[in-house]
């Protein structure tokens, strides 16, 4: 093991990813520095840090996005590097540049990599140039004739989309040439009505799309490798909910082709650090570049578990100028890993947020279970930030064992005081299509959310137990209240009770 790459690193983030980065720091003998907003003094990431500095009021824009304040802290504490985690400033090219100007190492790719990969049009052009497959289509507006000609060229089905579009407006799926003219007309009029602009373009429609991404690593010495794929098709409102590695229905050929494409993409932009190439894979196993995430990914642990590579530590070493340290041939896939994102939200009531104090917290343990948590017993979940409180990751020799462990771990996981998505994950882990591994990005909408609220696995036995427990708990509460209420009859008695209480303090925690 080499010596610590830096002496001190500032983590410009909060929650589980800040804890994850601080864990890497401690293993690397780097002092870690936390930032905390006004509502985060008691947050877990502060307790994992060696140093901590306030960074502003609760709203992220005034604290975790406050570049001036963050660089001020970096200077004050003498941090050699800043790790942005994901979200917040992680893909902000200006921040990366400001770090460079301030003489602080930004743990991530060069500012211009962030910049160009953050612009969908430029990213698309660069990838096309590097022979990375992209969804065939234009991004510029087309006349009716041009659109028809282009659609025939790329083949049906196609999507007709408004250039000013969004939220499904001015979007038309066209399955055959015969429908095309009519669809263009409708898309134009919808687009006109919605955006005041009837410009449209045409794109290949990806059938039964699966979201599969490739983890990449690049260093300052021109090395670039990939760490295989993750499947992230279990999404709700384009938010990933469950991820696995490797992907279902993957073939060695497709894996090799996608890996090569991702490494080509990394080399095309001179990628430094840990990043991800996101692809759509259709039902014919054709794949198309979606975007490049120029940061560590929420779901990086599933890759860590099947490759035994510590992605966060490697990213920090790379930022310090070290080489990746191993080659493509040194990594292989071992077993299967699944991640369930645990959110502080109520799946029974349309996933509404559920802030509050975590009163009881008993994370699962035992073989093959990893828990990357952002909370602890007594922590407060606020409404200001992402509601993800934990990532539960399970590994098995094969997918059935990984699923068995995930079911077991979800059963063990006790969180009280707030509602969580744990019951929702139980539903997915028992769903036949999930068990078969045959799902695409429409899984949650089509298979789980047929009704507005999630049908949890409530069974009759547990209902009866619940009814009895509710009555017992009410009885106990009322009895406890009554005995408290009846004890305040005289000042004398109260005084002695107080003395008694003071005595009980002995042997307790202060």
């Amino acid at each position: 093991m080499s010596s610590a790459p830096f002496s001190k690193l500032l983590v410009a983030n909060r929650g589980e990813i800040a804890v994850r980065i601080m864990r890497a720091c401690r293993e690397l003998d780097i002092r870690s520095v936390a930032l905390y907003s006004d509502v985060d003094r008691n947050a877990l990431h502060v307790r994992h840090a060696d140093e901590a500095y306030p960074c502003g009021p609760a709203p992220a824009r005034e604290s975790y996005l406050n570049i001036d304040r963050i660089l001020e802290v970096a200077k004050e504490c003498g941090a050699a590097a800043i790790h942005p985690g994901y979200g917040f400033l992680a893909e902000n090219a200006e921040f990366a540049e400001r770090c460079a100007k301030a003489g602080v190492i930004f743990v991530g790719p060069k500012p211009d990599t962030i910049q160009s990969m953050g612009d969908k049009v430029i990213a698309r052009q660069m990838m096309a140039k590097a022979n990375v497959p992209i969804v065939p289509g234009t991004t510029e507006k087309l006349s009716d004739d041009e659109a028809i000609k282009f659609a025939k060229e790329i083949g049906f089905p196609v999507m007709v989309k408004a250039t000013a579009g969004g939220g499904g407006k001015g979007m038309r799926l066209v399955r055959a040439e015969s429908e095309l003219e009519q669809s263009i007309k409708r898309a134009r009029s919808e687009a006109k009505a919605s955006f005041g602009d009837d410009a449209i373009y045409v794109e290949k429609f990806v059938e039964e799309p699966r979201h599969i991404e490739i983890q990449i690593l690049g260093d300052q010495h021109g090395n670039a490798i990939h760490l295989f794929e993750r499947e992230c098709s279990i999404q709700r409102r384009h938010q990933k909910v469950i991820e696995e590695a490797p992907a279902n229905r993957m073939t060695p050929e497709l894996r090799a082709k996608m890996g090569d494409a991702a490494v080509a993409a990394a080399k095309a932009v001179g990628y430094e650090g840990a990043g991800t190439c996101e692809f759509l894979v259709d039902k014919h196993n054709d794949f198309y570049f979606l975007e490049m995430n120029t940061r560590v990914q929420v779901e990086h642990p599933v890759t860590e578990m099947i490759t035994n590579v510590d992605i966060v530590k490697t990213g920090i070493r790379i930022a310090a100028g070290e080489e990746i340290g191993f080659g493509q041939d040194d990594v292989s896939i071992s077993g299967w890993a699944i991640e369930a994102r645990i959110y502080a939200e109520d799946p029974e009531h349309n996933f509404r947020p559920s802030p509050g104090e975590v009163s009881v917290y008993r994370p699962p343990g035992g073989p093959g279970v990893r828990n990357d948590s952002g909370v602890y017993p007594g922590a407060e979940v606020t409404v200001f930030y992402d509601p993800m409180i934990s990532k539960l990751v399970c590994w098995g020799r094969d997918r059935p064992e990984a699923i068995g462990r995930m079911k077991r771990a979800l059963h063990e996981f006790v969180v009280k005081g707030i509602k969580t998505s744990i019951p929702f994950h139980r539903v997915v882990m028992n769903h036949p299509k999930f068990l078969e591994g045959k799902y695409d990005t429409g899984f949650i909408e089509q298979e789980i959310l047929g009704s507005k609220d999630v049908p949890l696995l409530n069974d009759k036995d547990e209902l009866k137990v619940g009814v009895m427990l509710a009555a017992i708990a009410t009885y106990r509460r009322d009895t406890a209240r009554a005995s408290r209420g009846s004890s305040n009859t005289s000042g004398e008695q109260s005084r002695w009770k107080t003395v008694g209480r003071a005595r009980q303090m002995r042997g307790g925690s202060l």
Partner: protein
Amino acid sequence: MRYEVTHGKDVFSVDVHDVGGGIYDVTVDEETPVRIDAAKSPRTVYSLLIDSKQFEGSVDERDDGRLDVHVGSSAFDFEVIDERRKALLSAATTVVQGKQDILAQMPGKIVKVLVEVGQEVSADEGVIVMEAMKMENEIKSPIDGVVTEVSVAEGDAVETDAKLLVIDPPFNQRPFGPS
């Protein structure tokens, strides 16, 4: 103690008999009583043993007084009301027209009178806090109206059916016109 537990449209009548030591005999809807060993420390959730089957469960009271109950993989939303409280509140649910004599449903002590003669009250507004069987219960007005009589004072001990106060409906709703 008997409770009414409501789950959606289903109502269960549950009798809890405290055997002591965290053991309860519980009867649901007059079926055979079930013995439940309910273990809990302040720092954790319940462990229930029912006929040797083990369930972990938790009960959280929401701001609206309803209960969030988790058992195993299931989550439920219950309303629980005890029969004493139900009796105390029954005036509000059974008689809803005309002049209201608010009577004590069981012996108890008046903790607080929340209204005075002449005061307008709304349906469901608290009018008296009464302590019965060591529990405080807020008695609510069954109707919108005006308090026309207060028959008790704070600290009074009252028997079953003692008149507590009288609420008249508003002028335009009185059945036989102005009195």
